[in-house]
């Protein structure tokens, strides 16, 4: 399904030198009630790259995303987001940083007492932007996820897939430098999942947004590794044979609180680790 373009997507990209990585975990550990969920996790997310996080249920994938945005704090180790160490930041400092990071929660986490437009505009309203500007940008973001018609609706009136897309619109409205997706296609039918994967690929290839994506669906991540967003055709297209995994896409697998794989699609496909081979088969 083709995704409509944002009018401002051809805007020039800022050329300021970015920090080394969008996100960096350095020996991060966290335990809940003495159960170690993540044990000395280290990895880097380069700028412009999308990293898919895999692992069985309860392996700490969502915890890792919440750590990356400072919603919870690690027991030890250091986390850097856009060059700033967030581990010892105050909540007030984190609020400032979070304005540059977007997150899509597993169950969308839309504010059920607010309409779709108010949900999408939430961050803009907090910044006291003019009503005309807010409406323009909300419509633009909703058009991006093909849900402009839901402008006046409440989240309870939307399907699961629509709620997920509204959550994406809410996350991208301020054009964040980093996006965190928590199972964006979980529990959705294949057609809706494909629409959401296409939106994520578009965000990666057109806006060059760095992203961490938790997913259980290996096929979604492989689709992202083997497809690119064609701006001319305005849709996601498969990469020519021989150029698979040429897009900025990597994979990270968690097992028993540790990272057991961190690499690109080619490395994943040729891994000799029995667990990984079984996981991707």
């Amino acid at each position, binding site marked *: 399904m083709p995704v409509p373009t944002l009018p401002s997507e051809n805007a020039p990209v800022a050329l300021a030198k970015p920090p080394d990585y969008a996100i960096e975990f350095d020996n991060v550990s966290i335990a809940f009630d003495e159960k170690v969920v993540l044990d000395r996790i280290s990895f880097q997310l380069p700028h412009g790259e999308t990293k898919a996080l895999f692992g069985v249920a309860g392996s700490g994938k969502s915890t890792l995303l*919440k750590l990356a*945005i400072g*919603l919870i704090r690690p027991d030890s180790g250091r986390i850097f987001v856009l060059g700033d160490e967030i581990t010892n930041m105050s*909540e*007030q400092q*984190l*609020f*400032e940083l*979070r*304005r540059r*990071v977007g*997150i899509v*929660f*597993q*169950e969308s*986490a*839309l*504010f*059920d007492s607010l309409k779709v437009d108010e949900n999408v505009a*939430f*961050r803009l309203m*907090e910044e006291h932007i003019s009503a005309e500007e807010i409406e323009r940008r909300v419509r633009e973001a909703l058009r991006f996820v093909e849900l402009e018609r839901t402008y006046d609706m409440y989240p309870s009136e939307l399907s699961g897939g629509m709620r997920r897309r509204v959550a994406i619109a*809410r996350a991208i409205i301020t054009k964040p430098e980093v996006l965190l997706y928590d199972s964006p296609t979980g529990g959705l039918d294949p057609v809706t999942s494909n629409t959401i994967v296409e939106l994520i690929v578009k965000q990666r290839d057109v806006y060059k947004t760095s992203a961490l994506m938790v997913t259980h669906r290996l096929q979604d991540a492989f689709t992202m590794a083997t497809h690119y967003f064609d701006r001319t055709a305005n849709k996601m297209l498969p990469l020519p044979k021989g150029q698979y995994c040429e897009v900025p896409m990597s994979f990270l697998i968690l097992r028993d609180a540790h990272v057991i794989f961190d690499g690109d699609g080619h490395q994943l496909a040729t891994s000799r680790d029995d667990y990984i081979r079984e996981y991707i088969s």
Partner: protein
Amino acid sequence: MALELELISPIDIAKDLALAVQEYTLLAAQSLANFFRRPLYMGDMLQQADLIGFGSLPIVVLTGLSVGALLALNAASTLQRFGGITLIGQLVSLGMVTELGPLITGLMVAGRNASGMASELGSMIVTEQIDAMRALGTDPTKKLITPRVGATAFMLFFLTIIADLLGLIGGYGVAHLIFGLDTQQYWTSVWQILVFRDVFTGLVKPVLFGFIISTIGCYYGISTRGGTQGVGRSTTQAVVAASVLILVVDFFVTKLIFAIFGYR
């Protein structure tokens, strides 16, 4: 299926209690400190004032009238034996303004609004809406808690005045219609018995009770764990805790005011 009971040591219970008191104190202090930090969500505060104040009006009107009438009815049977039926206005006035007006209004609003706040915030916790708000760069204590605290304390003050007035009217209805007391005699005694201390007591208490109701409701709401069952549990606990705390604080505030202003 064997039923396994896990025993919790008294030390763990004491630790949990101390932690809860610490967290509640921090939340209460932060909700107050937020009044002096920007942004101040005046729109949310007005919306809450409407929900809490105007929403509670019917129940406050009803209970105020009933309590005043019942107070007059019960007092009259004793006063009549001593030929002191003319004192009925004084008794209703003192009882309503210093004690029953603030207390009954506080308990009614606690039942209605502490539960509402706990369930609303609890639902937001279990559906990750509070996390989403934090992730969107907004402080939930500023956006959700401080407006509720301000609105409840402010509106309870006026609700109590309304309850006091209706209590006096209820007392007048009983005194005049059942016991034949003269209108002017009743209202003169109502007015004359009150001194500054009584009015002060009656107006300080609702502000404190409003603070207790809102902070307890919000605390139980944001402490919710365990899905929809947890929301139900938080709601019940919020009403019980707010009601008990209102009764305890009422006693100590009354004692403190007596200590400051002296007994009659």
